[in-house]
């Protein structure tokens, strides 16, 4: 036991060495997400965005809150895309670093276990693309310190199903999904429910496991079922691989996807295979509102932003509005101020509902891939 205590003490001492003193006119904002592991592409993009925006605020002299100018310090930690590390990081951000609010993470499974810690520490979190309904609402009760700036899975699934049935006139659909991924399983569930409710038939429902790179066995089976559309609710690496393999096998069905799709990588890897495909997105890339952010990001980091950057951008906007409205850099006050807040973000109008802490009425955009470009089709709201 002595040794145990000694080790604990040693750990504590090392950790204590990492913490710094606070400045009274500096507001600390936390971020968490994956900087390592297979989600690292998105995490890096989000942290870059958050850092860039707060640097811009600082360079402009800071932000006036309750009659006092404040500067910002961003503290970002890696969680490997892992729920357990998210819990550790949330405790560190709230307890040790004393941030007033947290931006991120992108994965729902990482955001859900943060709730009890946030409640205890009274620090709000604004998730970027965590689309599982249970991130903000559990058993009909809203979680007081969890917010988000994106639409949710049931909505996205309904949009995809509605668009496929009504606009693409698809009557039969196949689904290929990642059985070990929560995001993929969620979208697949809501797509199926809504597509069948409309009167369509799911002719094949196939899955793979995270980490797989070959989908031809499942695609061969889907080919035999001959669907009008194939719904592919997963991320762009797998989308590009499965689309290429589908075309190799001679499948000509229209491919349909969700917000895991958009990326430059999809076009460079998917090439001709993804031409003519549709996906549900949070925004239209050609929208004048987003151009400024896109070019600022590219100028600073030398590469294009991923989708997550736009939502991280809006999460920061929502936070700053909440901070101004609260009038003091205090987590509890900011959380109160965020309820019902109404902000014009670059991904659309964000009105945080006090009942669900979701941005109510945020429309989804349908994009089509034409000549390697993401072409906006329409704003589509599911009924």
């Amino acid at each position: 036991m002595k040794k145990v205590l000694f080790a604990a003490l040693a750990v504590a001492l090392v950790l204590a060495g990492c913490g710094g003193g606070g400045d009274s006119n500096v507001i600390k904002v936390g971020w968490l997400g994956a900087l390592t592991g297979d989600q690292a592409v998105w995490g890096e993009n989000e942290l870059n965005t958050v850092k860039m925006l707060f640097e811009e605020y600082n360079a402009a002299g800071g932000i006036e809150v309750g009659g006092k100018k404040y500067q910002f310090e961003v503290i970002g930690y890696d969680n490997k895309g892992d729920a357990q590390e998210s819990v550790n990081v949330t405790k560190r951000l709230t307890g040790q670093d004393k941030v007033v609010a947290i931006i991120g993470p992108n994965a729902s499974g990482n955001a859900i276990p943060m709730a009890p810690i946030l409640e205890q520490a009274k620090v709000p979190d604004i998730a970027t693309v965590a689309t599982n309904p249970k991130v903000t609402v559990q058993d009909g009760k809203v979680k007081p310190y969890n917010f988000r700036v994106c639409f949710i899975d049931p909505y996205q699934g309904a949009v995809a199903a509605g668009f496929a049935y009504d606009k693409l006139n698809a009557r039969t659909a196949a689904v290929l999904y990642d059985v070990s991924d929560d995001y993929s399983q969620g979208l697949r569930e809501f797509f199926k429910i809504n597509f069948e409710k409309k009167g369509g038939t799911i002719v094949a429902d196939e899955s793979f496991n995270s980490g797989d790179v070959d989908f031809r066995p499942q695609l061969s089976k889907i080919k035999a079922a001959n669907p009008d559309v194939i719904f592919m609710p997963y991320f762009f690496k797998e989308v590009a691989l499965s689309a290429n393999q589908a075309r190799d096998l001679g499948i000509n069905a229209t491919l349909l996807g969700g917000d895991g799709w958009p990326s430059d990588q999809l076009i460079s890897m998917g090439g001709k295979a993804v031409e003519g495909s549709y996906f549900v997105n949070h925004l239209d890339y050609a929208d004048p509102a987003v151009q400024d952010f896109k070019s600022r990001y590219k100028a600073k980091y030398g590469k294009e932003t991923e989708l997550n950057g736009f939502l991280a951008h809006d999460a920061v906007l929502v936070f700053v509005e909440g901070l101004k409205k609260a009038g003091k850099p205090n987590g509890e006050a900011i959380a109160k101020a965020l309820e019902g807040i109404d902000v014009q973000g670059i991904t659309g109008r964000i009105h945080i509902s006090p009942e669900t802490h979701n941005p109510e009425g945020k429309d989804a955009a349908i994009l089509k891939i034409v000549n390697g470009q993401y072409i906006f089709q329409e704003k589509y709201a599911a009924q």
Partner: protein
Amino acid sequence: MVQFLQQLINGLSIGSVYALMAVGYSLVYSIMNFSNFAHGGVIMLGAYFGFFGLTLLKLPFAVAFLLASFGTLLVAIIVERIAYKPLRERKAPFLYFIISAMGASILLENLVIATIGPTFRTYPEVFPKTPIELGPLAIGRLDLIIFVISAVSLSFLIFFIDKTKLGKAIQAASYNVKACALMGVNTDKVILTVFGLGGFLAGIAGVFFGMKYTVYPQIGNITTKSFIAAVFGGLGSLPGAVLGSVLLGIIETFVAGYLSSQFRDLIAFVILIAVLVLRPTGIMGKVTEDKA
């Protein structure tokens, strides 16, 4: 019938990728009697070497291919020197080798994330990607090329082990390292050769994996499957590794195609365990006695 044949082709294609990875594993296992989990990381580096050879250095394919293979040969030897040799000298039990290998695997993956970045990269098109169409069937060109190159490199390997003096020494060492050393064989050299060969094969596997799919830091994870395949075929046996890989590829494909893709890996694991229960050393595994 068409679907059956197509699925068979799919299975062979998946199996051949497993085979390329499994042979390196099995080769090291045959001498060292431990599963070299760092092999996946070395394969991943091979994919990156080949990629940068083609894109950054704009080398012709054959040169980039050799660069990758010799690059990973070097990496495998460095890993051996740093992570295994000190253990070898202390005659540590195989568990320590495995843990050291896992450490190396974590290190390699995250080294790539930290330096090159987490994004995936696409190989430039070296061979045309359009498949050969035989009526309603589609066979990937790359699959055929992979098949040929794997066959060639495997026959070279078998030739090397069967005909050369060093190869004979490897064979002898795989029976009994201690006795082999007593007979005057420089076992350190043999072990280095084996790791070098394993690394060379990892480079080949990495380049082809990258061409067929894509390059990303987590490629190493896929090698869990090839490890299973090697066990399935019988650890330490090169033909066993190939056979196990092809069988695993076909089983997976047929389970996904005809039974349930949701439970594909589950059923594949059940079959694996059933095989092990019936044949406790895999299909062609060498029988190792428990050493004191």
